[in-house]
């Protein structure tokens, strides 16, 4: 079961901060991040990659995106 981070509606850089907090808390596993702007999608993806996590999938959801990241 992936951890969910709901960052919809939050200003820059809060989506990245929330994502990195969860990454540090879990260490490894799966996280799904919900964002509602393309800027947040790009920033979160970049931050996750820089922490050694893989972008598993980015899908459109409603008026935003669901980003699934993973680290084994």
């Amino acid at each position: 079961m992936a951890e969910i981070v709901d960052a919809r509606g939050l200003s820059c850089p809060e989506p990245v901060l929330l994502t990195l907090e969860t990454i540090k808390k879990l260490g490894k596993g799966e996280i799904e991040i919900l964002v509602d702007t393309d800027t947040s999608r790009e920033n979160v993806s970049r931050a996750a990659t820089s922490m050694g996590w893989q972008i598993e999938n980015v899908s459109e959801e409603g008026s935003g995106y669901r980003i699934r990241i993973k680290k084994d």
Partner: protein
Amino acid sequence: MEGFKNLFATRWGIIFVGLVIGVLAPVLQNLGNPPNMGICVACMERDMAGALGLHRAAVVQYMRPEIIGFVLGAFLSAIAFREYRPRGGSAPFIRFILGVFAMIGALVFLGCPWRTLLRLAGGDGNAIFGLLGLIFGIWLGTRFLKAGYSLGRTQTAPSKAAGIAFPALMFGFLLLLLIDPQPQGEARGMLLFYSLKGPGSQHAPLFISLGVGLLIGVLAQRSRFCTMGAFRDLILFKQGHLFSGVAALFVAAVITNLILGQFNPGFEKQPIAHTMQLWNFLGMTLAGLAFTLAGGCPGRQLFMSGEGDADAAIFASGMIVGAAVAHNFGLASSPAGIGPNGAVATIVGLVVCVIIGLTMRRR
């Protein structure tokens, strides 16, 4: 796997955008814009406030087409790339207050983050203190972010039309500029105010300024270019993505200034600058803190407002009102030094921003 690739949001993409801005700003200066002010969001919004008669500082009144272009370029880009998302409702009045104080801080120093870099790229040593102040203000802001600072969630607007108000306002300003040009030697058209001397009287040809503004609006919307974010991300996440664009801007501006003979190193008698270093530092500390608490530099706020972000539009409106306040109440600096009430306003602004940072928290 990551789909939805945006080439301008890659490392080379943002470096390209930084290079374009770094070349075009000194070129605009060469074509008539004020020295070391090829592009300055704060100064240009102040000139627009003057053009509308919101303040009557006679030397800074002109409806700057670059700002209009930034918003309309970002709007067109957001529409074209399906990134136009009307939204708003995240502590709008706090954002307005932050915009007012961001402008007051910027006008104590005499420039926004873009102009800080452009002043430095033109050889103005006083900008070093402004840059240090900007970085210190951003660092202060990151402390609040780490402590859970948040202005809350924005809401998606029920109607697509909701995000069009600020771009429409800018389009209206463009129409005003076109139908109400400056009468020869006159300080006032039918409606708009114009400077006869000083920075407001110095401008590149209208359609070149507008074209550059539109181009930068498109590129910055695609790349998410943000000078404040560049330093914030370095401090907060050790991420240099945005910073690489800002560094490219600075390097390109230095080289372009050298080529155009616009590089004049020194501290004294620098154009539209003063040598009161403590206030250069503290003015930009205030601006940097306000930008960080609002989530973006003044340019980025304009680009986001073009994407339909009403909160960013509120911040930009706060900056325009802040310019009027700064000039009506003696807060803005001049080459002679800070205004009679500039020091008090800077301290008050810092106190207000710290209170906002301490009180607006998620947990």
